């Protein structure tokens, strides 16, 4: 790695380390909280959302990080190409780190709480593909879960970066359109389209497509990785033409 890329890489890692630290501290607190509740109550608790929470967290972090990161590195005299390269490398590392940490949390928490009968600690992904993971031994299960969470995290970070880069490049009207458009599309338009589509022949095709891309953990992680790469690639020209904005 060239020394400037290395500095950009380090800068990204160091500036993301703090919010990630805070996030994992909160995760541990919440898990502890639920364990305590399980200890003192008879009702059963089922916690299995760590990876899903991490996905949301990493998406938001990538969204929030872009502008400040780009502008600061610009002040430090880094070219856009170097900013891009450093970010890709740093985000890959962070996605991997988060995947490993989450695995450790899942393994440790389920071991520690195994004696508690009314507390079940599971993994989001292994729960999602329960029948698939059930057949695997300890190592293959964790390795596959690691790959799956890494791909999902990277895809979402890539998406966050892409979205905030477009947002940064847009003018005021464009920003409003993105800010309003994305949630409207996901929560209003998509269900309507879906409802319409499921009454037509297209439904079959879409079901087949989803089945093909997401039916097994390996397929899902391949889809996520592909998505991450595509988003990363289309973010490149957007970042290359980004200019410092007046404040």
């Amino acid at each position, binding site marked *: 790695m060239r020394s400037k890329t290395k500095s950009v890489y380090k800068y990204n890692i160091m500036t993301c380390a703090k919010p990630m630290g805070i996030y994992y501290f909160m995760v541990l607190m919440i898990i502890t909280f639920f364990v305590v509740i399980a200890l003192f109550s008879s009702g059963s608790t089922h916690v299995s959302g760590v990876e899903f929470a991490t996905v949301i967290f990493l998406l938001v972090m990538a969204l929030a990080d872009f502008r400040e990161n780009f502008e600061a590195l610009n002040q430090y005299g*880094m070219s856009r190409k170097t900013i891009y390269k450093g970010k890709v490398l740093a985000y890959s590392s962070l996605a991997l780190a988060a995947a490993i940490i989450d695995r450790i949390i899942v393994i440790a928490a389920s071991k520690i709480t195994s004696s508690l009968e009314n507390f079940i600690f599971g993994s989001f992904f292994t729960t999602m593909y329960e029948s698939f993971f059930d057949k695997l031994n300890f190592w293959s299960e964790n390795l596959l879960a690691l790959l799956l969470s890494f791909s999902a995290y990277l895809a979402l970070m890539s998406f966050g970066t892409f979205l905030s880069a477009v947002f940064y490049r847009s003018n005021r009207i464009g920003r409003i359109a993105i800010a309003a458009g994305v949630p409207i599309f996901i929560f209003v338009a998509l269900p309507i389209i879906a409802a319409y589509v499921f009454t037509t022949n297209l439904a079959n095709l879409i079901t087949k497509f989803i089945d093909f891309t997401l039916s097994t953990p390996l397929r899902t992680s391949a889809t996520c990785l592909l998505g991450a790469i595509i988003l990363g690639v289309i973010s490149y020209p957007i970042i290359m033409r980004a200019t*410092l904005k007046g404040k």
Partner: protein
Amino acid sequence: MIEIKNVTKDYKDVRALDNVTLTFEENKIYGLLGRNGAGKSTLLNIITDKVFPSQGEVLVDGEKVSNNDEVLGKMFLMNEKNYYPEAMKVYEIFNWTDKFYPDFDLVSAFELAEKFKLNTKSRVKALSTGYASIFKAIVALCSNAKYILLDEPVLGLDANHRDLLYKVILDRYATVRRTIIISTHLIEEVSSVIEELVIIHNGKVLLQDSCEKVLSSGFTITGKIQDVDEYINGKDVISTETFGGLKNAYVKGKPQNVPSSLEVTKLDLQKLFIQLTNDKEGL
């Protein structure tokens, strides 16, 4: 050497720079003067590849700046606005700059902070306008880059700090010769510090010359209205002003055959500047 070749910059409905061709030579202190909105910041941002020109190009030591880490590393731009993370502390930014600019002088940065009584533990967002300028100027001057570009470095500084900052600029310049470009609209106080003068107005270069040449290109004559009028008759007059029966005239050329009733002083740079950049708004 920084060469700016036929650079034009259009924003949506404004032409910020209009076919600007300029050269900044090595090891000189330049004053980039212009009124607010004249295009100074845009020019500095284009030189350092932070903003793209609509037309034209910039060469630094013969190389294009765009996506050239090596060339970008030779320059440091102190922006007028803050682009550092607001929650970061001053000393953290010193340390990071040290990582990105290998020649950064960390020891001097902390020394200068102490001189200006800048608390390096405060966060960027907590700094007043004056201290934000001081902090950014310190980072720029200690970067030890070959080309240091300062955009309004004395913004919000009181007289004492302005004085100190000019001295610091000269001191850093004396230890290692480099090119320093100071963009400002406070002309008079910077005129003794700079060697070369560039005046831009409405996106165009009005004047580029050595400061001394400009200063010796004319003179000021003061006296009774009638005496002054008599003397300046037929001469190339830049501008005049009258007050309480006295008249000041700014005249081009060398003072010759001045009657003893008139007083000759040097050209007032600020007056020349106002004259050059006056868009006939006034009272």
